[in-house]
């Protein structure tokens, strides 16, 4: 029986991109359904009544919510192809730890850069870059956070790179100047079809963020 996979998503969403990357890494066919977040569909509200958010993966009619949980689900169901988590429990724990930390910090750090100005924005930029440097330390000399192979932490983090141009533009700074290793890593990731086909073009992300800034009255 063929699997039915539907993804409720929103093109500029970093969290949605994670799922697109994971599904592509596993070579899975699925139906993508773009959601209007300002006019949520009955299906979205039915499939994620608790948070009413995307992404939602619907696998044979059953919904899974929360991007990191969805990625783990995908990895466990389709475990024979391109495993995202390593086999060793200790290494798995390290991968989960870093994915969790990225989840707790990076989205808000980046968002705050785009919604602030002046001194406050300078502080936000500093915090953001400090966090990226910490991640660079974790990456070390490895090609990917997963080691030789593209893995769970890479999936968690790579989608943020689609937003770097927006952060740099609205923050007036260069991420590459401070974090060259991380930018080199994003370029390596973009060489993968699963990543380049899943991430929204940085210019389009930039335009989306510009729209959000207008919406929040930041100019």
């Amino acid at each position, binding site marked *: 029986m063929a699997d039915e996979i539907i993804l409720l998503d929103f093109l500029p969403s970093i969290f949605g991109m994670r799922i697109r990357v994971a599904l592509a890494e596993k070579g899975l066919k699925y139906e993508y359904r773009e959601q209007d977040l300002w006019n949520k569909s009955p299906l979205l509200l039915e499939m994620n009544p608790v948070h009413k958010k995307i992404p939602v993966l619907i696998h044979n009619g*059953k919904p899974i919510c929360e991007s990191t949980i969805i990625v783990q689900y995908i990895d466990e169901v389709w475990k024979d192809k391109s495993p995202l988590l390593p086999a060793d429990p200790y290494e*798995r724990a390290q991968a989960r730890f870093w994915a969790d930390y990225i989840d707790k910090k990076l989205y808000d750090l980046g968002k705050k850069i785009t919604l602030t100005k002046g001194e406050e924005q300078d502080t936000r930029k500093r915090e953001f870059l400090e966090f990226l440097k910490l991640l660079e330390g974790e990456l070390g000399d490895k090609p990917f956070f997963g080691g030789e192979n593209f893995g769970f932490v890479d999936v968690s983090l790579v989608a943020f790179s689609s937003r770097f141009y927006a952060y740099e533009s609205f923050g007036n700074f260069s991420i590459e100047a401070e974090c060259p290793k991380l930018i080199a890593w994003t370029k390596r990731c973009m060489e993968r079809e699963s990543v380049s086909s899943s991430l929204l073009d940085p210019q389009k992300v930039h335009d989306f963020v510009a729209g959000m800034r207008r919406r929040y009255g930041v100019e």
Partner: protein
Amino acid sequence: MAEEEVKLFGTWASPFSRRIEVALKLKGVKYEYIEENLTNKSPALLNYNPVHKQIPVLVHNGKPVAESFVIMEYVDETWKHNPILPTDPYERAMARFWAKYIDDKLWPAAKKVVVTKGEEQKGVIDEIQQQMKILEGELKEKKFFGGESLGFLDIAANIIIWLVVAQEALGMDQILNEEKLPVLHGWLQRLLDDAVFKECVPPKERHLDFSKVKFGSSIASK
């Protein structure tokens, strides 16, 4: 074979620390417990968890693991008997989803309800009631969230004990009362009665005194 060395850095009143103790005890894993003083963290703790500098931290044969859910999954994968997470991927996703819900929604609300008053507190009480109702929907007729025996979500939800004791310390009406939330109330009694779990719960009086000191000073007299 070398002796297995397992250490847990925690604090006796922390529900996060408790999660790991329960998980280790359910699996019969022998471990050395190190009580941390959070106002004067040990060099060992800072060395093992340089990123967050927090408890709990599990150190297994010298290698540290931090963050309670990450540790729980590590424990489950390393000591495979008496599994905490189900085997089915969909059920695993559900357990993780609800555990995250507890940390992202219930815990912040619980921390807030004990330091607010008046209308603001009423609002948070309503919020918690709603959250607990939602959790009841997940529990339904089961003995525990994990089914017949304690699972990942039951262990995660031990935060509710923290809230019950904190409310009692403050002389507040219990949000988790039998009348309004019979299903969750029943679950809590079963949790506290469980042979393994009850070994990990601090003596009520000690916990109550601790909460009175901690929260009594953080709100002005009503």
